[in-house]
């Protein structure tokens, strides 16, 4: 393992951030409020040149972290969305068969059909040169992984939802992630010219292999605390009243406590805040909640449960307030 670390191209220290707080501030400038662990891992990833494996429930900003890093560092983002049955041809590279066939067809008329008898050696030579030609970079279709490795400028490579692929695909990733190189049998090894920041995300729907985990820095993202989520909501819709924002985030947290099929994500809190602004609501009472809760709850059975539990509670608080006033 120690050799791996040495043979990988070293990160250019001139560009790497100098402190954790520098990373956090850079991320904040592009609209991502990172907590302490997230900022630290992003910093370490850039210093050590190791991939980041981000796990956590859906909708806590795993993909957004990669996008924010790309914006903060001014690097291009290359995204590989994983799905079941994703294979090397879709992830690494593929030969452009059609173009190759056209090339071969274009070659053939020049050699007359009787030529095998006339000069087999010449024909073989021609064939060999054609062979070399059709397996050159001209006929190569680059896919996200190769594109990230071969890029002239440093990039951020996002491998999204790695848990959706099968183990064979993970094994193929190992070479890319630890050596930052891809071997193409016909062309040889293509090594990274620059050092990409790699972010892998997983919803933890299956256990990833030890080998993959070993090569990554691990970050577990969870739903943020009330205070942090409030900051996030207010960062994205600054016009919202502080009191309303707090109420909104508290309700979202209450909803997450229930056992739902799909708990509301951070993005949905933000959407909700925007919707409330559009509706001109200045308080979150029961009627406003029931009208707008479809923004954060998106399952039939969840809707009933939330309406019953949270709706009641909102009503209850209202009632208490009225009592106290009376």
């Amino acid at each position, binding site marked *: 393992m120690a050799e791996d670390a040495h043979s990988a191209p070293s990160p250019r220290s001139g560009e790497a951030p100098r402190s954790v707080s520098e990373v956090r501030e850079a991320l904040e400038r592009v609209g991502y409020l990172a907590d302490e662990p997230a900022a630290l891992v992003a910093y370490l990833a850039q210093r050590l040149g190791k991939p980041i494996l981000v796990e956590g429930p859906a909708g806590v900003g795993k993909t957004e972290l990669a996008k924010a890093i790309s914006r903060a560092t001014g690097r291009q983002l290359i995204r590989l969305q994983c799905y079941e049955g994703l294979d090397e041809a879709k992830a690494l590279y593929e030969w452009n068969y059609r173009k190759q*066939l056209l090339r071969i067809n274009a070659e053939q008329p020049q050699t007359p059909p009787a030529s095998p008898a006339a000069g087999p050696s010449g024909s073989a030579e021609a064939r060999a040169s054609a062979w070399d030609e059709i397996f050159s970079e001209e006929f190569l279709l680059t896919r996200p992984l190769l594109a990230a490795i071969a890029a002239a400028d440093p990039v951020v490579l996002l491998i999204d939802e790695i848990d959706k692929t099968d183990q064979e695909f993970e094994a193929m990733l190992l070479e890319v992630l630890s050596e930052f190189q891809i071997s193409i049998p016909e062309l040889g090894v293509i090594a990274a010219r620059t050092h990409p920041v790699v972010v892998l995300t997983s919803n933890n729907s299956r*256990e990833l292999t030890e080998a993959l985990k070993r090569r990554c*820095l691990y970050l577990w993202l969870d739903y943020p605390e009330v205070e942090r989520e409030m900051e996030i909501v207010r960062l994205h819709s600054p016009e919202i009243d502080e009191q309303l924002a707090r109420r909104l985030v508290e309700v979202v947290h209450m909803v997450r406590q229930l056992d739902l099929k799909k708990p509301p994500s951070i993005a949905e809190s933000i959407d909700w805040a925007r919707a409330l602004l559009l509706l001109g609501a200045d308080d979150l009472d029961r009627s406003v909640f029931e009208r707008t809760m479809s923004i954060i709850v998106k399952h039939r059975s969840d809707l009933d449960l939330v309406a019953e539990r949270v709706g009641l509670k909102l009503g209850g608080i209202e009632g208490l307030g009225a009592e106290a006033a009376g």
Partner: protein
Amino acid sequence: MTAEPARGLAPRLVAFCEELRGEGVAVGTSEILDAFAALEEVPWGQQEDFREALAATIAKSPEDRRVFELLFDRYFFRASEAEAIERSIGEDRRYDGGDRLDLDQLREAVRQAIADGRDGEMRDLARLAIAAFGRRGEGSGVIGVDVQRIRRALGLQAQGAGAEQPALDRDRIERFERHLRRELERALIERTERLPPSRPLAELDRALPTSPAQDLAAVHRAVAQLKRRLATVGHEQRGRRRGAVVDVRRTMRASLDTGGVPLRLKYRPRHPRRPEIYVLCDVSTSVTSASVFFLSVLHALHDSFRKLRSFVFIERISEVTDIFERERDFRAISERISREGGVADVSGYTDYGRVWLEFLEQIVDDLGPRSTVIVLGDARTNGREPHADVFARVAERAGRTFWLNPEPRLYWNYGDSVMAAYEPHCTAAFECWTTRHLEGFVNVVAGGTPLADQA
């Protein structure tokens, strides 16, 4: 320790990893090397950075992270205390003025520190509180008791004591409690001048919560992971190319693109095996503690499989599929099952034999080679006829039969347990009383290889 890193840190860190391995966290040499590389990059004078850098390189799953947190606190706390004893360093400022403190003022200060979430403040106040309430740290001698006593005296509640007091965050109160616990431990170590023996983290700490009195939410958290895994079972199968059948017609059509050369093979889509699952769950008193857990497993299964029928039984069997389908809330489900299930006749003792007879009668036409039968129970028949032959007929008709027993394998076939009569008819029987056992089982059902080590 921070003064002489060259002398102390490396061996300490390796020893710490050694201890993590002892608790079952897979820490490889490469992880340790990464940890050292990471530590070079962070200013580890700050405890938070130091801890996070280690966690990011060493603990690589939520489960590992939990163990890491527990061990980190214990290990580095013990290490620095051991060093202190060795060099006989005591802490001078002992907050002796504890008795003269205004208690209301202290209460207010503690609440403020917890609301702000400042760790340093909390630590100082924890010591102040120990001095004030714990008779200078002597207390009862049992740390847990002292912590609770001081917490009560300070009036710390998550709900907020009254209308004028704002509610405090539960997590932060727990953090304050950790400070209290640690300060009490420190005081104890200073008094006795030696470290209490280090114990492995209790196995219980990671076992399934089994008592019905325990928070149901904890059970559900354990099942949530299982739910996610089960949800992808069908999908994983689809991605595999093994044993695929070439679809000649579609391959020929695709070859038109490439001038009639069939470069791209098209495969017949493989239909994922859609399992029909029958779950039979014992809810009698002998498995009370486990049945809460089993019911919540059932609950989780219902979310993940469409073709799932569930039954509960004690003396008789009763289908509860529609209860699970209508009710989303777990608590409501267990209430309705106990009210409407009608599974207890007179005695309330399990009668496995009768259950098989009734089950076979109800379901005989539906069982087929694609059905999976899962039995959750302890196979304790209270001395009644086990009717293993009827169970054998059920197992024969079904494609697969699994038995999950909430008792350790050691207790099987002792007393009135007749596991031996049923086990040969099952595809496999598992003991299932920790999360690990459950995972092993899920792995098998999902079509994976059984875990090598079930114990």
